[in-house]
């Protein structure tokens, strides 16, 4: 086992880039990925004993999505119940249900009310709930995030939308000092049950300032929880869980995933905020990913399966805190880890996850943890350049082959 942990990660990326042949690149499809999801059908109630354990406990709580195995969604789809919708509609459904359920929930953000939301997540809510519950704010992220936090201190449950996650940098002080820390510095007197959500990530040539990934900046703030949704099923579940949570939660959505279509259950359900999702159980290697990169990984997984590999794909979903339980069980099974993320290489979620895995599961690793992340550059405008800043399925395949030698 080579001790070249950091070197390994760097070399892996470098090799991946040098073998990267843009001509051979398959354009990653982003919308309507039933094809990607079909690979989930080769399931096993995999995961080992923990799945059954968690299932038996959670059946007592019908709302919690059982065992976070993505195939559960399939079950309802195959039995015919459930309805099909797009991811932004799933978010809207979750939001609407929570607003119906609890009069303290309100939404504030730019153009969320009369305009219906720049990504249509809050469409129709202003007509239904009125101007006092769905608030169009002026363009002042610092102030309206602060106002949401102040309102949360008194017991309201605001859902604050950043039109693009990058704009929340203007509210960083409020999120870090007031949102994250007030519960602690007041000795437990105030809770801040706020949800801060918005789309982030690299889109389609949106330019550098609108393609930011803020999970890396927020991850050190004590007191907040961060989750990233990736499918309509977990988007609705996480939205509901985030609103019900007493802690401040930052929900990271992705600009390119809003039009994903999936069938979700009719009955009410919530996803566990702190749990990772087993997308595809496997034996050879653990691939940890979240948000949009899940789809790149699943695409690479198809290629890998054809080549004879059996990757285990886990969508970590909970970016803070990490679900080290699910991840740990997977590492103990496969002994190899590849992290695929859209964050920057320096100080990103992958960097923290690498450190956490090395610290806790070093004895179980047969190879150094490899992390594929975006390049440390501002996202360029040109389409070809933008593709190269983000991890592509071909690089994932190369990395897996390298790790599994």
């Amino acid at each position: 086992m080579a001790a070249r942990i950091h070197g390994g990660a760097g070399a892996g990326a470098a090799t991946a880039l040098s073998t990267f042949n843009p001509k051979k690149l398959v354009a990653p499809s982003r919308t309507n990925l039933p094809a990607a999801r079909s690979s989930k059908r080769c399931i096993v109630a995999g995961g080992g004993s923990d799945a059954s354990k968690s299932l038996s406990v959670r059946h007592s709580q019908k709302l919690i999505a059982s065992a976070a195995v993505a195939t559960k969604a399939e079950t309802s789809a195959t039995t015919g119940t459930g309805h099909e919708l797009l991811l932004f509609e799933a978010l809207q459904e979750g939001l609407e249900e929570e607003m119906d359920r609890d009069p303290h929930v309100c939404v504030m953000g730019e153009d969320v009310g009369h305009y219906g939301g720049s990504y249509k997540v809050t469409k129709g809510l202003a007509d239904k709930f009125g101007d006092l519950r769905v608030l169009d704010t002026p363009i002042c992220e610092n102030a309206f995030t602060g106002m949401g936090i102040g309102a949360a201190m008194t017991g309201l449950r605001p859902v604050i939308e950043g039109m693009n996650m990058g704009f929340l940098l203007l509210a960083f002080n409020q999120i870090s000092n007031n949102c994250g820390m007030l519960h602690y510095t007041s000795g437990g007197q105030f809770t801040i049950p706020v949800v801060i959500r918005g789309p982030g990530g690299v889109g389609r040539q949106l330019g550098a300032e609108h393609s930011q990934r803020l999970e890396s900046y927020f991850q050190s703030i004590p007191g907040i929880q961060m989750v990233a949704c990736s499918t309509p099923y977990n988007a609705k579940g996480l939205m509901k869980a985030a609103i019900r949570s007493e802690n401040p939660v930052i929900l990271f959505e992705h600009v390119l995933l809003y039009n994903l279509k999936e069938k979700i259950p009719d009955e009410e359900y919530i996803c566990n905020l702190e749990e990772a999702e087993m997308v595809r159980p496997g034996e050879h290697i653990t691939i940890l990913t979240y948000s949009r990169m899940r789809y790149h990984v699943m695409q690479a997984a198809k290629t890998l399966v054809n080549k004879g590999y059996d990757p285990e794909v886990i969508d970590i979903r909970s970016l803070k805190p990490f679900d080290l339980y699910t991840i740990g069980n997977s590492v103990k099974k496969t002994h190899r880890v590849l992290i695929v993320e859209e964050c920057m290489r320096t100080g990103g979620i992958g960097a923290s996850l690498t450190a956490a895995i090395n610290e806790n599961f070093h004895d179980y690793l047969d190879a150094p943890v490899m992390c594929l992340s975006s390049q440390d550059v501002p996202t360029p405008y040109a389409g070809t350049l933008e593709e190269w800043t983000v991890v592509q399925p071909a690089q994932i395949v190369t990395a897996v082959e390298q790790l599994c030698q």
Partner: protein
Amino acid sequence: MALSRLSSRSNIISRPLSAAFRRSISTDTTPITIETSLPFTAHLCDPPSRSVESSTQELLSFFRTMALMRRMEIAADSLYKAKLIRGFCHLYDGQEAVAIGMEAAITKKDAIITAYRDHCIFLGRGGSLYEVFAELMGRQDGCSRGKGGSMHFYKKDSSFYGGHGIVGAQVPLGCGIAFAQKYSKEEAVTFAMYGDGAANQGQLFEALNISALWDLPSILVCENNHYGMGTAEWRAAKSPSYYKRGDYVPGLKVDGMDAFAVKQACKFAKEHALKNGPIILEMDTYRYHGHSMSDPGSTYRTRDEISGVRQERDPIERIKKLVLSHDLATEKELKDMEKEIRKEVDDAIAKAKDCPMPEPSELFTNVYVKGFGTESFGADRKEVKAALP
């Protein structure tokens, strides 16, 4: 100054003052009308009248509480120099009239949020001396369990929302509290306090815009002590009329060293905010200490200036003169009251010194609130060695 005469005075002994008093001090609510020393200057509204309704009891309680606040701050000064209080300690002496006058005009349902100069406002909201000193010294019985410190005093049951270290960040929070008050249809207002230094923060104007747009019952109170740490207001602000800075929002300039003027202004502001939305109050006040304990306070202003203000405008002296001229107590009784206050403060300090430091396990409490009532498994399950990542 026209002072109305008392019609009657009862001989009931007042609250828990020592029985050493020969002459009783009136405690009934015999009304007194007091004229503020300076008129109010108004922007976009009609200023309130200069005659303030008060009572003998209120006058005496003003004196007592302000003397208590003054004594507490001086004691905090000595504790800091004795290295029992560390870090930042921002003292409020000289500005007590603002805290007292505001409390007299409002109820505990109205919210107050302020910046880091919060010891006296916490006391005014019903905090105890023991909690103050314990928190300042980082002990476990402090109001924030020793985890907040001087800049993070909070009292939820009296709607005191703290206690904030970052300059200006409390104003959007305050407008958010006002929003919640409007949302829940409570007939209450929020006083968001800030200083002349913070008045130049952009988020203030952002919050003011939203408050005016949505008709929120928020009152922005600028405690203008004329120095933003070491920078005088004329060097930091192009327009030093902070009460006019709201532009479309009405404002009132108040003599912040006169507790009755503050009381009148806050009463006026509360009525205004409940009907018409936000209003700005500028309290013209002064701090005797430097910005904080690490600032001597004399490098950017002369000692003559400080002692001049102390002689002419000191809020406690003003109340003292009123008490004496209304014949509510003798000099000796007031001195005895001050002695008793000194003892009260010393007792609280002694008790706080005996209080233990927080347990090491307190380091990890109150970071998150656990769960939402159902069984959810977090990452800290027993099999894995990792703690909070």
